[in-house]
């Protein structure tokens, strides 16, 4: 079993896994890691089930002290990982000794880094997932002085040896460049917006606002003109839905979003871009681009193939 003390939780650190998507039926947000590809990949590196719980840390400040020897892997955003003050590689299984200090010191690229451990973290299992959902009072944010540990009490030594030092080939590291447009499909209330408004939406740059969170990624930029008021009869707000409230500025609904809402949705983010959007941070400039449904499905299949490839490469 690996144990760690939270020396500093940073801006926000929670346990996350792949979420509770099937709970949508009971009108509960799916939650789960904002960048789930990253979670799957570090779990594969560690030889864990892909759904094992990891730490999701946001922007900066997390500092852990190892209370036992063990193995970890870090992926997602590059937040300047150091071990005992020295830079350490991401997407690699790292051997940790008791007393080591694991810290994130600098925001370089992306918004959320993930720390995985052999066996996955022992976080409370709530309705099929270990993901914290703070708005719904499910789980809680980690605090200074908390002690956390992994689930697996006796990983077999052969397996540990095989995984130690394992590194994700660079071709399998997810592309988290924000230069490429975020691809979208038409939303359920596209007819609430004028043709000019839709043109503005898909031809302008939008800057990510600092008040974004796990629920909604807010933007600043040109206002989108509408032909009907912003309010609709409350209807389902799918994850990735892009709603435009009275301000005329798009908000991308993400993992912790409410499941129903009363604002018109101009577009839906393609599934293949959901995890990339999970790495959007304040000041990032993005564009939206409409694509066809078949193109969106092709992107989804491509992403699945990448993951399948990673499974084969990292197996054993």
């Amino acid at each position, binding site marked *: 079993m690996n144990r760690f003390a939270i020396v500093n939780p940073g801006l926000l650190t929670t346990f996350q896994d792949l979420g509770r998507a*099937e*709970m*949508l*039926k*009971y*009108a*509960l*947000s799916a939650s789960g890691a904002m960048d789930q590809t990253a979670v799957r990949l570090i779990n594969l590196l560690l030889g864990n089930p892909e759904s094992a719980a990891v730490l999701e840390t946001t922007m900066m400040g997390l500092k852990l002290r190892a209370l036992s020897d063990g193995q970890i892997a870090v992926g997602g955003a590059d937040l300047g990982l150091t071990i005992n003050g020295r830079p350490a590689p991401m997407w690699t299984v790292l051997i940790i000794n008791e007393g080591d200090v694991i810290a994130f010191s600098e925001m370089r690229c992306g918004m959320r880094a993930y720390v995985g451990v052999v066996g996955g973290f022992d976080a409370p299992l*709530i*309705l*099929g997932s270990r993901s914290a959902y703070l*708005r*719904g*009072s*499910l789980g809680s944010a980690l605090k200074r002085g908390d002690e956390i540990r992994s689930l697996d009490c006796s990983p077999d030594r052969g397996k540990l040896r095989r995984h130690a030092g394992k590194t994700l080939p660079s071709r399998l590291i997810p592309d988290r460049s924000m230069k490429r447009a975020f691809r979208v*499909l038409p939303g*359920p209330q596209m007819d609430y917006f004028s043709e000019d408004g839709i043109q503005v939406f898909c031809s302008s740059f939008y800057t990510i606002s600092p008040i974004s969170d796990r629920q909604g990624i807010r933007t600043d930029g040109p206002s989108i003109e509408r032909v009907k008021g912003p309010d609709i*009869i*409350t*209807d*389902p707000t*799918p994850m*990735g839905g892009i709603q435009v409230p009275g301000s005329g500025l798009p908000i991308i609904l993400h993992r912790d979003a*409410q*499941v*129903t*809402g009363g604002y018109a949705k101009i577009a*839906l983010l*393609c*599934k293949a871009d959901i995890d990339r959007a999970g790495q959007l941070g304040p000041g990032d400039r993005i564009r939206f681009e409409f694509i066809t*449904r078949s193109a*969106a*499905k092709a992107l*989804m299949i491509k992403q699945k193939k990448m993951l399948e490839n990673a499974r084969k490469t990292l197996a054993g």
Partner: protein
Amino acid sequence: MKKANYPLIRLLGEDSILVEFEAEVSWEISGKVRRLLHALETKGIDGYRMALPSYRSLMIYYDTCKISDDSMLSEVMSALAESEVMDEPEGRLFRLPTVYGGEHGPDVDRVAELSGITAEKVIELSSNLKLPVYFLGYICSQAYMGGIPKELQSPRHQSPRPLVPGGSFGFGGPQANILAVDSPSGLNYVGRTFVKVFNPDRFPPTAFLPGDFVQCYAVDETTAVEAGKRPMEDFIEPLCDS
């Protein structure tokens, strides 16, 4: 403007279908949504994942590896046809012990003033209401209820209260809710039940279903708190029309 032909059925995103009925908030229209949901759930379609109802629409999710868009669309069409001739499953009545006024219902006086009746009358009227559950939504299985009579209808607060305790019962206009968890809200809160209408330690986390009815009847604080120790299923009673 061209008149929409309802129901409107559309493929949405990569793996969902949205069915929309007439754009109004009414028990009749939401009944169409509930009947379609019921028809889909009883059909046993391979590849069907789930559906989320709201006032006038149903969002249907399916597994695109198991069923094609076209096959799912035709399943939805046939469920729609079946739903038009079926009766809606009978709703149940949840009678939840509720403490009114004071710290648990800070808006009783406001509603009384806006309605031109006494605070006692507000509590008496509220306590007798059997409110229909249109659907569950927002966060944590929040029940969207309607059926607030004209004499109690009051506008929402100009700015929402930053934190209203879970279990609070309130209304704004014709709509009402019982907060599932502590939340910001602009509704007028008149009482609070301690029965856990959302309990993440159980599956499913709520017993409410669209089409159920809820009565928040007045009791003293001790009785209300005591009732909070029992599961919400304990408070189901037969629904009589009287």
